[in-house]
């Protein structure tokens, strides 16, 4: 009975909640707002792994920025544990799509950067641990311009993981990785997520990745982005690479394909009509 009421409590207050969120940018030339995402409502539970897929430009990055507190929605609200988000917080860390590495710092310095801002001098061992985690040991003294795209991306990943946030906001964090590294990193991320019970919001263009990682896949429409479907992924955990070949996985895959493809065609039709 006690347990059940606790469960009910958790259900009532999601970790992250978006209510009717509308995100818009002001065009520099005009005074009007250009809406990039609209009517977005999401309830993300503590410890849930949510992936977001949608056509390019539908406002996925903008949504993550808003959850992180870097961008204020012009309508609706974003709540974390019931409190409105007004600014970035230590409970959240973002992995940026464009890496955002400090070019004058080494790999080591970049990974240490977040920790440094949030609590003084980080211990070298701790920094080293996250560098190892993303497989960049041996490259500590390299500068970003000496790294490949995929290596740069992993520096950004290590930097976010290193501050040990409750909520990880990941914007196509594996986008620049080759297929093998991608799978290894996905497995690693799931391991970390399972051990540390983080809440993860993960944007990706890779349908398989979205299914493999997620408890729930959010499908968004073309701009202005709206949530057009939420798919609960009931594949057993811990996930294994073999599951990608299973018939259930194929079903999820074709379902997502259909949703995204229909969405794309709808958009094309609308353009033709306009």
């Amino acid at each position, binding site marked *: 009975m006690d347990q059940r009421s606790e469960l009910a409590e958790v259900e009532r207050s999601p970790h992250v909640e978006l209510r009717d969120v509308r995100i818009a940018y002001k065009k520099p030339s005009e005074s009007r707002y250009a809406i990039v995402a609209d009517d977005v409502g999401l309830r993300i539970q503590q410890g849930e792994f949510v992936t977001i897929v949608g056509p390019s430009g539908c406002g996925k990055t903008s949504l993550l920025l808003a959850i992180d507190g*870097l961008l204020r929605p012009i309508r609706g609200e974003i709540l974390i544990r019931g409190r409105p988000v007004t600014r970035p917080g230590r409970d959240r860390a973002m992995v940026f799509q464009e890496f955002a590495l*400090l070019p004058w710092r080494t790999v080591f310095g970049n990974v240490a950067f977040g920790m440094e801002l949030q609590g003084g001098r980080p211990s070298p061992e701790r920094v080293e641990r996250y560098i190892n985690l993303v497989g960049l040991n041996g490259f500590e003294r390299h500068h970003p*311009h000496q790294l490949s795209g995929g290596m740069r991306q992993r520096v950004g990943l290590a930097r976010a993981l290193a501050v040990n946030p409750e909520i990880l906001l990941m914007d196509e964090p594996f986008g620049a990785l080759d297929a093998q590294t991608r799978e290894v990193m996905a497995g690693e991320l799931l391991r970390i997520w399972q051990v540390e019970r983080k809440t993860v919001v993960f944007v990706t263009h890779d349908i398989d990745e979205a299914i493999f990682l997620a408890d729930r896949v959010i499908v968004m429409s073309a701009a202005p982005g709206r949530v057009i479907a939420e798919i609960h992924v009931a594949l057993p955990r811990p996930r294994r690479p073999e599951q990608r070949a299973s018939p259930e996985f194929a079903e999820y895959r074709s379902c997502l394909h259909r949703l995204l493809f229909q969405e794309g065609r709808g958009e094309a039709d609308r353009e033709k009509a306009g």
Partner: protein
Amino acid sequence: MSLVDGARYRLAARAPVRQRSPAATTALMAMVVLLAAWQLAARWGLVKHGYLPAPSAVAVAGVAMARDGELWQNAQISLLEFAMGLALSIGVGIPLGLLMGWFRTVRELFEPLVMVLNAMPRIALIPMIVVWLGIGSISKIAVVFIGGVIPLIVNGMAGVRDADGSLVRLARSFCASDLQLFLKILLPGSVPSLLAGLRLAIGHAVIGVVLAEMYASVRGMGYLLQSYGTNYEAAQLFFLVIVVSAAGYLATACVQLVESRFQSWRQP
């Protein structure tokens, strides 16, 4: 593995230098040919001695000036004025430029003045400064300062204002305070711009100190130039011009060396 990679990168970084060395040889050869032609032209009397002294005559004049201490005494004075003026312009220009980039009110306060000074030929201020500060070292330092401070302010301001927006966002995402944002993103991000400003400042400062000494002074390299000029002593004059140019070039080259080190982390 990392060692191998490191070696490869070091090699790659060195390659352009190696490519430059044939060009340096060419330049050296061109200079030798030019000097020889000049020497011969002077020796054969193709140009009047008073207009274009032979390189050998310039060298002889130079050795004489160095021997009797005239060169060093005056160079010392110019160097001191140059160094103090430049130090002052660095001490004022860099902080002020950075603050102008960071705070709008500071920018709005100083920008008109800086823009006017930037647009006008600052040499035109020399007579005014001499009226105010006399013909001693102070007025030379002031001229150097005004020449050097403007590019430092302008570039310091630009360095902060052109900061990479995605890095600013990154710092904010990790809850950086304003001070942290400044120290860890804006300041290091401005270094290339500041170094470019410093290079310009040195150029302006060299011109400033020589001109100010030529206009109103009884000491310094500018004064020497002026007095040998009025006496039509071309060999000494030539020698002084070469010394001053070499000093200016050397100072600029030092900054360029530092710049190229910082250039390495700039992404293509």
